[in-house]
């Protein structure tokens, strides 16, 4: 058994560092950007033509939260090549597996995280907006310098949750031919006929990755909480 672990663990870790972690980190980064923009659009009090943008943002969040991630991956990777529009897209949209993964994971994370960020911004007392406005700050200045730093404190634990979920969800990328950790474990299991051992081993590697991330979360929470005790 140790022999199998000794030979397969390096392969799993290599796949982890080459695909699992980059997929998770890059998707989470884009997901956060999408989430922030979406949250700000949905919180905005602008009227008129802006309402269309608000509707699109709301629709996007609804769409990605109400459909399974695996199905989303399949649509983007296997489905989009068939999105053929005469004259504009004669060959559909063909994406590299990794690109399709990044796009899907980013959009999926963005939809969930936008709700987290929206709630966190709403949780900052309205008096903070007023205090910023009273000294003549623009809405953007107040948001950037007063509201977001405080919202981060509220958003950090649920965002860390999203990130940890994302790390594990990248295993679904195996289904769109990305050779990430889970795909590699499947491949090895098919060769050595040790599915229990191989899937348990890959499970432990995921657990190790997320445990490290949990420690990082605790540390970050301490950093953002250090100057805030009770909310006034």
């Amino acid at each position, binding site marked *: 058994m140790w022999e199998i672990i000794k030979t397969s663990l390096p392969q799993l870790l290599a796949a982890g560092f080459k695909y699992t972690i980059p997929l998770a980190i890059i998707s989470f980064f884009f997901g956060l950007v999408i989430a922030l923009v979406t949250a700000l659009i949905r919180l905005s009090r602008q009227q008129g033509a802006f309402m269309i943008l608000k509707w699109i943002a709301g629709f996007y969040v609804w769409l990605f939260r109400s459909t399974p991630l695996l199905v989303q991956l399949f649509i983007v990777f296997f489905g989009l090549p068939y999105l053929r529009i005469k004259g504009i897209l004669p060959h559909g949209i063909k994406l590299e597996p990794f690109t399709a993964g990044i796009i899907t994971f980013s959009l999926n994370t963005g939809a969930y995280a936008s709700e987290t960020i929206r709630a966190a911004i709403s949780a900052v007392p309205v*008096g903070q907006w007023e*205090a*910023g406005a*009273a*000294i*003549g700050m*623009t809405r953007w200045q107040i948001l950037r310098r007063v509201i977001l730093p405080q919202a981060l404190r509220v958003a950090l634990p649920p965002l860390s949750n999203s990130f940890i979920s994302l790390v594990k969800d990248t295993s679904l990328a195996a289904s769109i031919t990305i050779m990430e950790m889970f795909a590699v474990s499947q491949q090895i299991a098919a060769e050595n006929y040790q599915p229990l051992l191989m899937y348990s081993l890959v499970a432990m590697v995921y657990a190790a990755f997320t445990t490290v991330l949990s420690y990082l979360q605790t540390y970050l929470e301490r950093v953002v909480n250090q100057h805030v005790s009770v909310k*006034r």
Partner: protein
Amino acid sequence: MKLTNINKYFGNKHVLKNTTLDFPAGQTTVMVGPSGSGKSTILRSLNLLVIPESGQYDFGKHHLDFSHKVSNKTKLAIRRETGMVFQDYNLFPNKTVLQNITEGPIQVLKQPKQAAIRNAQKLLVKVGLANYGDAYPHELSGGQAQRVAIARALAMNPKYILLDEPTSALDPELELSVLKVLSQLAAERQSMVIVTHNMIFAKRVADRIIFVENGEILYDGTPEEFFAVNNPNQRIKNFISSMTMEDL
């Protein structure tokens, strides 16, 4: 500062009814009245945190007609020339005391950082908190926090300071520390408009008293007349006696 025929509705509630008020510079105007009377709404109209539906507002070179949309530029300009102190301080919890005070001067007035810090330190001395620059808001008592908020308002070098029940959240001893600072500002002829429930303080510092009830101005005049035993207005007499607990 002058409001003319201001009307404000919150939903169906008519909170300000054709209100006309003048706030002379260099004076301390104190607004009193029962809760929900509209006095805070008047105060917030002065820095456009509340925008009335109709009426005019004159402030320095600004002339606003509320039946037209108030531009963002005008809002920011008027807020730069006024300071506001809130009942629950509203200090920025993620910034130190010094950063709270220099935020406006540096970010809004674009003052050089060093000059803004020097000025902030002077203001901290003025409000009796010289050594608190590096403290965070959660480390302060309510009275200290409110004095920082006053320093933050003063740092903008505003033409007027608007104070919305600045001591209502404080116990009497802490309240006194804030009232001392405000008395000093009043003595320096800083233009102020204060909403308060503290009648003793109102009597002491006010150059002028305004009594508001149900969105209407029931009194606008000297504190001497307002607090006079022979004030002919029975409603005001009742209000004062309940605020000072005379009949207890």
